[in-house]
Structures are given as structure tokens and as C-alpha cells.
């Protein structure tokens, strides 16, 4: 076993000790993880963006990049209370462009295409509406009505919202099932590392 595997193994066990209860060994590993992962993100952001998209083209004579550079530096104003309002300007660029790009993305692929697929499976098929297609349509409308809070959930709306909760429960149940699979898979991966690489019990 090499030193790398030993260190990775000991750190894995350090995290697993939390299963008994919080302890200094776990805390050591936890704080180490936080520091290393921020350091990692910092390096990757620096090399892949600041150098690639900013400093190297700037050094190559692309002086239009002085504007985003200035905007980027203005974010640092956040740390000095006197100048912190300046940081709103770069934030405005991020939030404005994000909002502008989100409108067509939400409207088209998320709302209209999803609606179209729901309705299309009921009335758009040559063979007539299928049972499953009707289930989806009812489920969609009932669940949407559950999230409609502008009127009290009474009468027809109350019934619809109640049916909506049943559909939601089916979704949450299915998601729980898959989440169990997911969490077990991650643990199996770590167990395989411990049994195979660290302890050599498996080939």
C-alpha cells in the first residue's frame, strides 16, 4: 500500500467516526476539507478564467477587457464598507444578464414545452387519449392547484389540491426510492475503496 492510499484511507475513516458522534478527529478532517476545497476552487477559477479570458488576452493587446477587469475589481469594494455600494455595479451586470437570459429559457423549454407535451399526449395522438396521458394531465392540474394559494383550498379547489397531494406523494416516494439508491451507491464506493485499496480484501 502506498502513502497516498494510506492517507486517503485514514481521512475516510476520520469522517466515518462521525457516525458514533461528533469528535475532534472528524472536526480535523472537516476543517481540512473546507480549506482544501476553497483553495482548489480558487486555483481553478484563476487559471481557467482569469488567465485564459482576462490577463493573457489583455497582455496581448485586447484593451476592451479593461472594462470587465474594472467591474471585477469593483466586487472587492464589498469588503470596505465605505466603498461597498460600488460592488452593486458588477452585480447589476450579473443579475441583469442572468434575468434576461432566463426569460426565454423559462418560458420556452420549461413552461411551454412541458405544457405542450402534457396536452399533446392527450389530444395530439392519432389513436386518441391514452389512460396514462390522462393521468399526467390530471396530475399536473391537480398538483398546480395545490400550489395555488390565492384562494382557500375549499370546494372544488380543495378536492383538486387534495388529489394534487397524492400525486406529490407518489413523486416524493419515487424520489425517496432513488435517493436511497444514490446514497447507498456512494457508501458502496467508499466501502470498496477501504476494502480493496486500503485493506486488500477484494481484488
Amino acid at each position, binding site marked *: 500500500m502506498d502513502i497516498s492510499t494510506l492517507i*486517503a484511507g485514514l481521512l475516510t475513516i476520520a*469522517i*466515518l467516526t462521525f457516525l458514533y458522534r461528533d469528535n475532534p478527529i472528524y472536526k480535523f478532517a*472537516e*476543517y481540512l*476539507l473546507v*480549506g*482544501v*476545497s476553497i*483553495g*482548489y476552487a*480558487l*486555483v481553478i*477559477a*484563476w487559471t481557467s478564467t*482569469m488567465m485564459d479570458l482576462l490577463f493573457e488576452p489583455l497582455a496581448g493587446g485586447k484593451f476592451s*477587457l479593461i472594462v*470587465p477587469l474594472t*467591474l*471585477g475589481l469593483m*466586487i*472587492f469594494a464589498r469588503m470596505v464598507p465605505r466603498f461597498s*455600494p460600488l460592488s*452593486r*455595479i458588477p452585480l*447589476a*451586470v*450579473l443579475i*441583469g*444578464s442572468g*434575468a*434576461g*437570459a432566463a426569460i*426565454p429559457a423559462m*418560458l420556452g423549454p420549461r413552461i411551454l414545452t412541458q405544457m405542450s407535451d*402534457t396536452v399533446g399526449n392527450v389530444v395530439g395522438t392519432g389513436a386518441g387519449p391514452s389512460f*396514462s396521458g390522462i*393521468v*399526467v394531465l*390530471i396530475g*399536473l392540474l391537480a*398538483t*398546480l392547484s*395545490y400550489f395555488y394559494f390565492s384562494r382557500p383550498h375549499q370546494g372544488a379547489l380543495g378536492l383538486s389540491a387534495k388529489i394534487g397531494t*397524492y*400525486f406529490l*406523494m*407518489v*413523486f416524493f*416516494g*419515487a424520489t*425517496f*426510492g432513488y435517493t*436511497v*439508491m444514490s*446514497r*447507498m451507491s*456512494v*457508501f458502496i464506493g*467508499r466501502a470498496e475503496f477501504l476494502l480493496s485499496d486500503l485493506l486488500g480484501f477484494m481484488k
Partner: protein
Amino acid sequence: MSRRLAQIICAIFGVVMFLLFFSPHPAARTIALTITTEYWQVIYAFALIVGAVSFLRVNVKNIQRGQDSGYRIISLIGLVAMPTVAIIWGIGANTPFMWIFENIQVPLQSTVFALLAFFVASASFRGFRARSLPAAILLISAVVILLSRSWVEGQFASGLIATADWIRSYPSMAARRAILIGIGLGSLTTSLRVIVGIERTWLGGGR
């Protein structure tokens, strides 16, 4: 003043990005590319660096106050070590930077996540009970899905996969679709409110 200016810039970038979505004109595509690569990404990268600097400042302050000093020093060592080794040896395949990532960060982070398997087991025993009709529906749905992916599906119950797939593809999907559309409507209206200046919480307090 800075609030008003920020709002105007936000509205301009919002409207421009929205309009650019529909235009195939080469000039429009160039503007879209400039906004996404030169503005959006560069500013975002600066924001990441600001986050790291803030983390450093908070930890140094807490060390000075003697709050969890030992642990915080370990965090700071980790934070400083990564850029240091990256500057000296680079970030290529067989560098100390990648060694730390692969032998410290990856095992730590994936094991933290693996802990959830145990908490899911505990929650299944203690909290997953058919106390009411909705809870019973949730339970049945989860059990069918889990059984359908537990090897027994091929050995004993041939219809199990079909039932599980039907649940996932129709009733479960319908509810998920409603959530998706609800989030879409919410995001859409929030984006519009941000662009026209009704939603201003992102500006924070102050003048």
C-alpha cells in the same frame, strides 16, 4: 446614486440579453459572446476570489479571538497550500496539486456524502411510517421503486419493473412537471421584476 445606476445597468443587460436570444445576426451573436465570456464569466470569477478572501478574513479574525483556533488553522493551511503548490508545480496530471485533490479532497468529500447512507437507514426505520393516506401512498411508491431495483425484480416479480416505470413515467412525472412549471413561472416573473426594477432586494441596503 449607485442604486439608480445599478438598476439602469441591470435593466440594460437584461433587455439586451433577452433580445439577443432571438437574433441570428452576426453582430448580435458577437455581443452575446462578449457579454457571456468577457463580462459574465470574468465578473463571476472575481466573485469566487472575493468569496475565498472573505473566508480567509473571517477565519483569521476567529483565530485571533481564539474560537476553534486549531481547526481554523488547519482550514487555512489547506486554503493556502493549494495555490502555493499550484504556483510552484502547476496543476497538471502528476502534480502535488492533483495529489492533494485526489487523496485528500475527493476521499473526504465523498465520505461526508456517504454518511448520508447511514442517516437514510436510520430515518427509514424511525420516520417512514404509514400514519395517513398520503404517507401510505408515499411509502408504497418508495417501496415499489426500491424493490424494482433490488435484483428481486428479475428473479421473482416480472411485472415489478413495468409497475415502477409506470409510476415514474406518469403520476410521479406529472407532479414533478407541475413543480417544474411552478418554478418556471416564479423565475419568469422574478426575472421580469428584476429587469423593470420592481424587485430590488439584490441591491441590499444603503444609498
